[in-house]
């Protein structure tokens, strides 16, 4: 079982068949720094699609040997998106990563019905594995970035993606907490209603493998003492692996709080696509950016 992001990075290094990472419009320091480190650590082979002279200039500035990368010159970011998505689609690359291209243009190429990378009828969502010193295990949280107000179907998809990721980390039956402000079921709170429905779906094996409970507040989900004090009978009680949030605006500040005040690191990626798609915010730490690539390497491995 993988219990930290450092361990994650160690595990995906030095594989015989290194995954091929295609980077869209790869010429900024953020992207090249993380990709360069991953190549140096023998984690991936990198295929950079961007302006060649810009790539060379940035590499020089970062002290990265240009030979670390396979560089393909393209004239603009839209072309870069089409080329890289095409490369992944044809199987010549295993992982897609966003560079300096605008997120909207990048996602447009990913979501394109004919030439894009979405699994049939899938929901696009974002899952993060968060490593915080003060929690006794890794925490998988969703959705920090894509779905503003997930409905029931989208919440189910979020849970399934987070479970899929946790299982890849070796957690056989992750404990899923559906996060709300209270543990009570009220028909006036649509999230509580959705959560109650999801719990029953989990009980009936319609969402699996997992142990699910909600609504729960963060304390009940992540702090055993609170569950004891409150006397709430929950199978998750302070030992959650996965936190599903009711909205992006709840989840995003939560993870940023963990990064800033909890000294956390994260590894995140898009889910719902045929291959892992790395998309990270410029404000993430160097380490977290590197962990995002490591995560994609873990997720690209086929289940045995």
């Amino acid at each position: 079982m993988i219990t930290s992001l450092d361990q994650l990075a160690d595990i995906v290094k030095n594989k015989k068949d290194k995954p091929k990472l295609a980077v869209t419009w790869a010429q900024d320091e953020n992207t090249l720094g993380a990709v360069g480190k991953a190549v140096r650590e023998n984690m991936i082979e990198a295929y950079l699609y961007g302006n060649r002279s810009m790539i060379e200039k940035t590499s020089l500035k970062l002290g990265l040997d240009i030979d670390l990368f396979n560089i393909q010159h393209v004239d603009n970011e839209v072309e870069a998106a089409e080329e890289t998505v095409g490369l992944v689609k044809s199987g010549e690359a295993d992982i897609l990563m966003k560079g300096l291209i605008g997120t909207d243009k990048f996602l447009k190429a990913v979501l394109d019905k004919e030439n894009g990378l979405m699994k049939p009828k899938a929901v696009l969502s974002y899952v993060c594995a968060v490593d915080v010193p003060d929690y006794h295990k890794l925490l998988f949280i969703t959705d920090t970035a894509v779905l503003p107000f997930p409905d029931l179907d989208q919440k189910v998809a979020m849970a399934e993606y987070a479970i899929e990721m946790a299982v890849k980390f070796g957690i056989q039956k992750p404990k899923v907490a559906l996060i709300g402000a209270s543990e009570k079921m009220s028909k006036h709170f649509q999230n509580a209603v959705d959560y109650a429905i999801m719990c029953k779906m989990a009980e009936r094996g319609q969402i699996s493998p997992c142990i699910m409970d909600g609504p729960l507040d963060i304390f009940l989900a992540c702090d055993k003492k609170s569950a004891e004090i409150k006397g709430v009978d929950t199978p998750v009680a302070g030992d959650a692996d996965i936190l599903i949030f009711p909205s992006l605006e709840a989840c995003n500040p939560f993870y940023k709080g963990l990064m800033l005040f909890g000294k956390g690191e994260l590894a995140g990626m898009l889910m719902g696509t045929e291959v892992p798609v790395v998309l990270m915010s410029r404000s993430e730490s160097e380490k977290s950016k590197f962990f995002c690539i490591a995560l994609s390497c873990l997720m690209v491995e086929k289940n045995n």
Partner: protein
Amino acid sequence: MILKKLSELQKLIDNKPVKRLVLAAAHDSQSLGAVLKAAANKIIKPVLIGDEKEIRKLALEGNYDLEGIQIIDEPDIEKTSEMAVKIANKREADILMKGKVGTSTLLKHVLNKQWGLRTGNLLSHIALFEVKTYHKLIAVTDVAMNIAPNLQEKISIVNNSVACLNMLGIEMPKVAVLGAVEMVNESMQATLDAALLSKMNQRDQIKNCLIDGPLAFDNAISLDSAIKKGIRSEVAGDTDLLLMPDIEVGNVLYKSLVFFARAKVAALILGASVPIVLTSRSDSEQAKYDSILLAAATVK
């Protein structure tokens, strides 16, 4: 406690004060017969309100003894209901029973705001069945009162029924919320409500019972079937109370149990300040008698 036969309800009232029952529009051969038989067995002490001449004639025909039975002569059916409800309201009767009066007429008086029997709770119907092929009595709700209950109404129906079963000594009745399938299906409201009720029960928002649902009828009453489907449920196969998605399903189940399974049944209206025996004309005299017995056992 596990009850296997309706006749075992008798044990619950032995050594307890005899309950007083008021029968509205008592000039009805079947309900009169059941009441007088229950009176003879000291289950209840009746007050008969109705056309006295007709009551005496029916008693004679049925060979019933009216000795010592209080009769209030009132030939007007509407007035019998009003009087009966007022008597129950004043706590001079513990049980209200419908005789030869329409259900809507009697309920109109029960729901009267000044002198009715309102408690603030929803009125609901419970039917308790003795079925040869099941290992204990099984209650079914709501097969007669609430047509298409929403979530809030389902909560009230469960609360009414659980309180009634608690009175019978069934401390933590197992409640199966029925659906056509045991899986949650977004297009089937019954399965969604079932999931919500389960969660509310888990969070102690619905107390004194154990709720699981959705369960299909077979998983609710047969452990074997639940195991075959891979359902892990403390309720499956050992259900005390079946909560119906709506009256159509409930009524058909009720009647199929009676006609196909030859089940015995006792039924009540719950949620008023006293239990109400409100059997239909098509119910047998035995069903009426057993309903009186059930009412007597559930008087607070």
